[in-house]
């Protein structure tokens, strides 16, 4: 009996690697620390009532962002471990199998558990405030989306210490990801972690589409929508059409592994290339999903910090919609080398190049907005300005990759790695950082001090170029991706070494950011932000910081793109809005179902990972019961009475 238990444990837990024992200890200590702090300060009830069961979009947004920063840390540590290995290729710091796991988890986490939730966090915090709404269209579903993402991400991360990490790359191509080549459970963790959080992403896409269509303030016509909200809308369109493809693709892969189907296997008629087409039919749109909101953030910031209306509003909107459309017709540029023939390759090369046109339009619009503006160099604006040259270079190397015959040379080399990191870091991450700095006071009610933020900015940026510019070169010299070691005779070492230095500089940049936030939290009482600390232009700046739970005491109007700016001009001329007339506000009640249901999804996922059918069925039954419980509950909302609104507004406005 004991023997059998031991044997089980040695397979269940990942053993044999000191790094992993270190992680085990760290995880154990963290859990004990969290539990004891919560118990000591008697905060369990607070946690449950204010966070775990909340349906308030602002709190959900904050939880998304916190989770994504933790994931940025994990993905970043993975990145640094890889860079360390590549700087000393013969030291065996990471064994090849371990290296495979690390690049797989790094890529998956960065895209799906860092970029996506960061983006959803910004959606949640800002979109309802920008369109003058009290919440999103479906607050309950919104909470469910968050918890599905969170527990999906936890399931994925668990693979590090239990069962073993996936190691077939961030898109897990078969046949490598099939049972025949990856018999362990790591691949199942990959499938279920993404699957569970993917359902949440799809729901969020639908939720925000309905919110933007139906809940805009009176007067806010489509062409009066703030640009960030437009970017969210275009992104949600892509989510709606792309995420079901991912869901099916992963489901089919799982059926191959679990139920013995032959969709992508090498035997009995399976077709692995089918998977690669399908996954990129989601994967390419996915990169536009994460970058469009960053474009939206930059548009807001450029206009606010240049104190000018955004140049070319309509062309911005059309550029975004055209990008969402074209993003579905470029997927095959990821495998020009597959051998689909010159005609097919030519088609996909052309569509890819076409996307550069609307993107170029946007860059010019940002530049023209800044032209002759009164520019203020606060941190959000600095990230925005740094983004522009970075994205231009990243975009141009992208066009180079899209030249199909040339891609036979660049394909899967470090040239590609440098390209996509340049657009993902320079575009997506810089954009979300800019957004976080910009909306920080709105989220938390206090300002961050700029000094540490500027240090972070410079180390990140210098680190970025030091890290990735050498990779273009080393790629052209023939170094391929997913390589954990190379010989001295290749001549690649110097460039790799420089690149690693750059990576660590970015790590230092991250530490500066953590310090900046910690410092801000420590001194938050002295850093109190007004409702409108940046002299903003859109409606979110018209209410106190942080926003009260009902957002707007009276529904605002949205007759202009820069409604709040116009309002301030009117007030300066002495035209004041009429005294507000308060009415009771209709609010959704908190619910524990999203959290509990997601825990059941986690249980089901875990059961499927290990092929324990009883556990999977138990989890799915729990999910079903939660759904029925929700369908039968009718007592889901309440009203905030006028007195309470008056009291809240008086205390908030009084201090502003």
């Amino acid at each position, binding site marked *: 009996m004991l023997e059998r238990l031991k044997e089980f444990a040695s397979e269940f837990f990942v053993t044999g690697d000191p790094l992993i024992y270190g992680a085990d200890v760290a995880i154990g200590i963290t859990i004990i620390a969290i539990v004891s702090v919560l118990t000591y300060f008697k905060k369990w009830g607070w946690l449950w009532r204010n966070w775990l069961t909340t349906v308030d979009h602002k709190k959900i947004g904050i939880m998304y962002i916190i989770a994504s920063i933790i994931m940025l840390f994990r993905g970043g540590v993975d990145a640094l471990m890889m860079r360390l290995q590549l700087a000393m290729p013969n030291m065996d710091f990471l064994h090849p199998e371990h290296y495979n796991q690390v690049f797989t988890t790094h890529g998956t986490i960065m895209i799906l558990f860092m970029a996506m939730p960061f983006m959803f966090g910004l959606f949640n915090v800002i979109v309802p405030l920008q369109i003058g709404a009290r919440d999103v269209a479906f607050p309950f579903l919104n909470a469910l989306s968050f918890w599905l993402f969170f527990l999906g991400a936890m399931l994925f991360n668990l693979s590090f210490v239990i069962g073993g990490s996936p190691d077939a790359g961030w898109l897990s191509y078969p046949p490598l990801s099939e049972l025949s080549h990856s018999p362990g459970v790591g691949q199942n963790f990959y499938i279920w972690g993404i699957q569970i959080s993917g359902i949440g992403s799809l729901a969020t896409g639908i939720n925000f589409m309905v919110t933007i269509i139906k809940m805009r303030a009176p007067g806010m016509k489509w062409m009066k929508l703030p640009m960030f909200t437009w970017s969210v809308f275009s992104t949600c369109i892509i989510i709606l059409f792309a995420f079901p493809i991912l869901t099916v693709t992963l489901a089919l892969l799982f059926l191959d592994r679990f139920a013995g189907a032959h969709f992508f296997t090498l035997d009995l*008629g399976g077709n692995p290339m089918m998977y690669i087409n399908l996954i990129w039919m989601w994967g390419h749109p996915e990169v536009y999903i994460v970058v469009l909101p960053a474009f939206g953030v930059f548009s807001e910031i450029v206009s606010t910090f240049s104190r000018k209306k955004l140049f070319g509003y309509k062309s911005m909107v059309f550029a975004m919609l055209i990008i969402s459309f074209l993003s579905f017709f470029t997927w095959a540029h990821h495998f020009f080398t597959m051998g689909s023939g010159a005609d097919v390759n030519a088609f996909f090369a052309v569509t890819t190049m076409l996307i550069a046109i609307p993107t170029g339009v946007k860059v010019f619009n940002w530049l023209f907005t800044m032209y002759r503006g009164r520019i203020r160099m606060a941190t959000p604006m600095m990230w925005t300005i740094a983004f522009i040259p970075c994205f231009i270079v990243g975009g141009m190397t992208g066009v180079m990759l899209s030249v199909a015959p040339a891609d036979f040379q660049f394909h899967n080399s470090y040239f590609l790695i440098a390209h996509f990191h340049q657009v993902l870091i320079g575009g997506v991450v810089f954009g979300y950082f800019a957004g976080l700095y910009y909306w920080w006071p709105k989220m938390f009610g206090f300002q961050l001090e700029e000094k540490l933020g500027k240090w972070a900015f410079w180390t990140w940026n210098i680190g970025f170029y030091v890290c990735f510019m050498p990779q273009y070169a080393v790629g052209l010299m023939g170094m391929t991706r997913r390589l954990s070691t190379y010989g001295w005779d290749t001549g690649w070492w110097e460039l790799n070494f420089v690149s690693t230095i750059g990576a660590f500089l970015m790590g230092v940049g991250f530490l500066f950011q953590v310090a900046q936030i910690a410092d801000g939290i420590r001194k938050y009482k002295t850093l109190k932000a007004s409702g409108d600390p940046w002299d903003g232009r859109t409606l979110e700046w018209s209410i106190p910081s942080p926003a009260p739970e009902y957002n707007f005491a009276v529904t605002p109007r949205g007759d202009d793109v820069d409604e709040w700016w116009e309002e301030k001009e009117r007030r300066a001329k002495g035209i004041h809005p009429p005294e507000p007339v308060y009415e009771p506000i209709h609010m959704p009640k908190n619910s524990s179902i999203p959290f509990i249901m997601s825990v059941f999804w986690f249980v089901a996922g875990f059961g499927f990972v290990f092929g324990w059918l009883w556990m999977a069925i138990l989890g799915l039954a729990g999910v079903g019961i939660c759904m029925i419980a929700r369908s039968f509950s009718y007592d889901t909302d309440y009203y905030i009475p006028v007195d309470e609104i008056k009291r809240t507004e008086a205390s908030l406005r009084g201090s502003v």
Partner: protein
Amino acid sequence: MAQAAAKHGENHAHGHDHGHHDPQEMKILGFWFFLISDVILFSVLFATFIVLRDNTAGGPILSDLIKMPGVIAETFLLLTSSFTSGLAVLAMNQGKVKQLINWLIITAVLGAGFLALEIYEFVEMVHEGFSYTTSAASGAFFTLVGTHGLHVSLGLIWMIGLMFQLKKRGITDVTRGKINVISLYWHFLDVVWIFLLTIVYLMGVM
């Protein structure tokens, strides 16, 4: 208390506070978007089926196993159930709860009949050596048709749940919204079946 709050929620559609958005209307719109995503889901399965349909790896071939009379009976049951679900909505719009529930029961029975026939068809095929793991083609067939069947099953459970809610609460704005949504869903499954019938069955035997 709960009752009172529920009443409040029901009146809310005729909004007095933030007036301009009606929750039921938003739910229907959201559900349309969900249906779009479901269309994509089925499209991918159809595409997979079309790519893999001839990859039988020397095993049985689907077109030899299709028995058209059974398929026609299935079609008949499902189309009729779509019609009766429409009648249920008509009854609801005239405010007749009893009739509404009765039509829903008939719809559910027809749906269950469809499922029973489908499962019988599947079992027969497995007996003939065409099982889930036989080949890429068989797996693609069962997954595509089975996903539709799964949708029908979930719809049935949901419909039964709604019958209880109707019994308890009658026709209110909230229950009306729910019935509108499920009838939309049911018609959608019908449309998907028409595609299955054409692409999987008719094109298979022809």
